[in-house]
């Protein structure tokens, strides 16, 4: 039995549990602050602290246990109504939660935490205690005189109902016998006549003689549970020279704290994931179906060549279809395991908003919508930071100060809404505020000053708004601590794009701003539409395709800067000649018989010219970056059923580029080596 192994496993699961408990504490503390002085809230707080204390102690995280002990004691006072929950106290508790997070994360990564800060907070906590109570939760073992080989006489007279609580005197004697050598003498003098005997009652008592070098305390300890349920006398008959032995307080070693500060870590990139049992059950069912299909196909293994006739072939075909279905379901089921509800990320925000509200002197209300919307775990981990930045931006720059809001006739408290939902196979996260909105003029001027646009360029309001995503752009007059360093927005965009997602912004000056993030539900598998361009096959994500149609030449027109536009149901959409984009030979000069595939990204639509629409199939997305390098305009590659490599087009990029003018990602035909190179690299 290896207790070290047990301890390590327990420590890991405690860390995960502690994260949840601390989150719960934070949420409850914020509830308390809103005035929900519900008894149950305080009880829940106490239980959480209690669990953390117990668990950390068991794992050997002594410093954590000691610190939490003080927190728990204060919470105990609160739930016994001996202490009131003042705003200052709640702030102090919130600070303690931060300390604990820091200590736990330091312990996990094996670094040291800032002991000075923790000690400072602990002192403040202790100051709040009704009577000063000094920390250590562990009972100290005081000095006890030790003696050698003494004879102890123990008279043990249990009460009649002794057995009723499940105690067993015999097992206690066994325990006593471990201390030395034991002689047991039972007295049956109190036994009644058989007819009066109730088997549940105890009529016996004992005299025990123990020869041991133990201390009296050790003997008392054996009977600790039952001291009130019996008469117990312990006498020492002989004694030899006493040794005064001081036993030190037993403490498992915790992290030694020097002054190194610990960095606050962001949402844990843990190696484990919580999965709802329904998902697991669904998977088990699917695997069951797969096994059935497999045995159906397996039956054909015994067939000889003569047995195969048309009917057999049909049956095999059926099984193969079934197999495709099973595989697909299983695939989706497994993907879903990696999906977590976005509440995991959203739950940071009440605290963030609360802190910023104080810091900025503004009043906000946070509304969370769609918390159960699920996204892939990795995507969630990556999207958390950009969201934080966008929220800070909104609160810092978007929402106005209370007086300014009132002057505009808005309610004093600004509303920030975080909303998540699924739409056409993507996950969408919206950050909506009812603040000042974007100042179009200011942005335009700044962009001109930075040389991003020319003075004479005419841009739509949306296009001007989109400029804030450019690197280095910031209209904040001075860099505030909260945001506005000008490195934020483009990092957000970059991170979202790295997830194959997209960011867009819509704003009405004076009314508010909405930032919208589109994310794919999973990055690994794609439902693709194969298309032929020239003699190569490319793939478009099926979900981004709105429709495909044969060109009606009368709907094509050429606009100002020689861009072609297609009138689709009375709305002009840019036409993108993919041949040009990809630097491939144009197989057609005019568009008379062309096929157009209308694709959508974030509300904007674009018509792509393709030569042929081929099959639709699921493809496994292989990263170009990992295998070759990042190629603008391509979102990845895949290997088709016949072994050829097909490149996946980056629809958002194509759409965005098309909106700004005619995009050209690849140099023209003579440098097709690039494209070929890319394909070769992807195949290896």
């Amino acid at each position, binding site marked *: *039995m290896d*207790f070290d192994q*047990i301890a390590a*496993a*327990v420590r890991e*699961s*405690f860390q995960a*549990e502690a994260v949840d408990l601390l989150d719960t504490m934070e949420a409850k503390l914020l509830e308390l602050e809103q005035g929900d002085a519900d008894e149950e809230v305080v009880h*829940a707080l*106490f*239980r959480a602290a*209690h*669990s953390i*204390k*117990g*668990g*950390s*102690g*068991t*794992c050997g995280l002594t410093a954590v*246990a000691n610190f939490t002990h003080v927190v728990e004691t204060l919470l105990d006072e609160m739930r016994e109504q001996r202490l009131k929950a003042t705003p200052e106290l709640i702030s102090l508790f919130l600070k303690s939660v931060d300390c604990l997070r820091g200590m736990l994360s330091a312990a996990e990564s094996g670094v040291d935490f800032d002991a000075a800060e923790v000690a400072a907070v602990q002192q403040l906590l202790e100051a709040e205690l009704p009577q000063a109570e000094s920390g250590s*939760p562990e*009972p100290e073992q005081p000095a006890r005189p030790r003696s050698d080989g003494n004879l102890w006489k123990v008279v043990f007279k249990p009460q009649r109902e002794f*057995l*009723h*609580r*499940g*105690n*067993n005197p015999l*097992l*206690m004697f*066994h*325990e006593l016998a471990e201390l030395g050598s034991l002689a047991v003498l039972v007295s049956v003098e109190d036994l009644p006549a058989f007819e009066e005997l109730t088997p*549940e009652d105890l009529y016996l008592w004992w005299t025990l003689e123990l020869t041991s070098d133990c201390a009296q305390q050790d003997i008392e300890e*054996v009977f*600790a*549970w039952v001291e*009130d*349920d019996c008469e117990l006398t312990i006498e020492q008959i002989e004694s030899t020279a006493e040794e005064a032995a001081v036993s030190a307080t037993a403490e498992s070693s915790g992290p030694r704290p020097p002054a190194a500060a610990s960095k606050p870590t962001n949402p844990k990139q843990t190696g484990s994931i919580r999965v709802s049992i329904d998902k697991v059950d669904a998977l088990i069912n699917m695997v069951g179906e797969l096994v059935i299909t497999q045995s159906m196909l397996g039956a054909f293994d015994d067939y000889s060549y003569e047995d195969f006739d048309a009917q057999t072939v049909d049956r095999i075909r059926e099984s193969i279809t079934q197999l495709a279905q099973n595989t697909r379901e299983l695939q989706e089921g497994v993907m879903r395991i990696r999906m977590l509800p976005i509440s995991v990320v959203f739950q940071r925000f009440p605290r963030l908003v609360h802190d910023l509200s104080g810091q900025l002197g503004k009043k906000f209300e946070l509304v969370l919508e769609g918390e159960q919307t699920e996204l892939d775990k990795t995507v969630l981990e990556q999207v958390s930071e950009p969201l934080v930045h966008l929220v800070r931006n909104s609160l810092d720059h978007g929402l106005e100060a209370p007086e300014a809001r009132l002057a505009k006739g808005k309610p004093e408290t600004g509303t920030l809404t975080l909303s998540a939902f699924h739409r056409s196979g993507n996950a969408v996260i919206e950050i909506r505020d009812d603040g000042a909105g974007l100042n179009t003029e200011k942005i335009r001027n700044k962009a001109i000053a930075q040389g991003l646009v020319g003075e004479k360029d005419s841009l739509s309001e949306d296009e001007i708004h989109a400029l804030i995503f450019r690197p280095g752009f910031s209209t904040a007059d001075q860099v505030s601590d909260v945001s506005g360093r000008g490195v934020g927005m483009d990092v957000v965009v970059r991170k979202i794009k790295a997830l194959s997602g997209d960011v867009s912004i819509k704003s009405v000056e004076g009314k508010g701003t909405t930032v919208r993030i589109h994310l794919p539900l999973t990055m690994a598998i794609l439902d693709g539409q194969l298309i032929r361009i020239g003699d190569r096959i490319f793939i478009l994500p099926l979900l981004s395709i709105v429709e495909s149609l044969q060109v009606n030449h009368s709907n094509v027109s050429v606009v100002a800067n020689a861009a072609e536009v297609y009138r689709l149901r009375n709305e002009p959409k840019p036409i993108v000649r993919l041949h040009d984009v990809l630097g491939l030979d144009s197989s057609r000069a005019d568009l008379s018989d062309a096929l157009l595939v209308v694709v959508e990204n974030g509300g904007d639509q674009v018509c792509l010219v393709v030569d042929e629409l081929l099959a639709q199939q699921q493809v496994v997305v292989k990263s170009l970056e990992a295998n070759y390098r990042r190629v603008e305009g391509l979102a990845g590659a895949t290997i088709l059923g016949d072994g050829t490599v097909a490149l996946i087009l980056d629809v958002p990029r194509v759409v965005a580029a098309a909106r700004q003018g005619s995009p050209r990602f690849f140099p023209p035909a003579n440098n097709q080596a690039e494209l070929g190179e890319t394909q070769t690299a992807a195949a290896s």
Partner: protein
Amino acid sequence: MKEVLVVDDSPSMRQLVSTTLGQAGFKVTLAEDGEAALQIAQKNQFKLVVTDVNMPRMDGLTLVEKLRGLPAFKFTPILVLTTEVDPAKKTRAKTAGATGWLVKPFDPQKLLGTISRVLR
């Protein structure tokens, strides 16, 4: 086979106790709070119950009281896991019917030693 019912709202504590007892040859059933434990107890037999005190829905001492009300559990050893040792809490545990207690944090050896005081 020695069947044990382990009740604790902390998953890591459940894991610790169940692993320790499992390796020692016990057959462990887990419950995460008093109510769940009570339901299990009504349908199964156990030689020992180990329960935490502070739990949501139904706390440990209430669970002990209720268990003692079930005929099958009248004399079953019930150990409570507690972080406090003050006399008042001890008395309360005993009044509820607990056989004994074990102070958290404990190391797994201690758990086994304590159990040997009530179970062969």
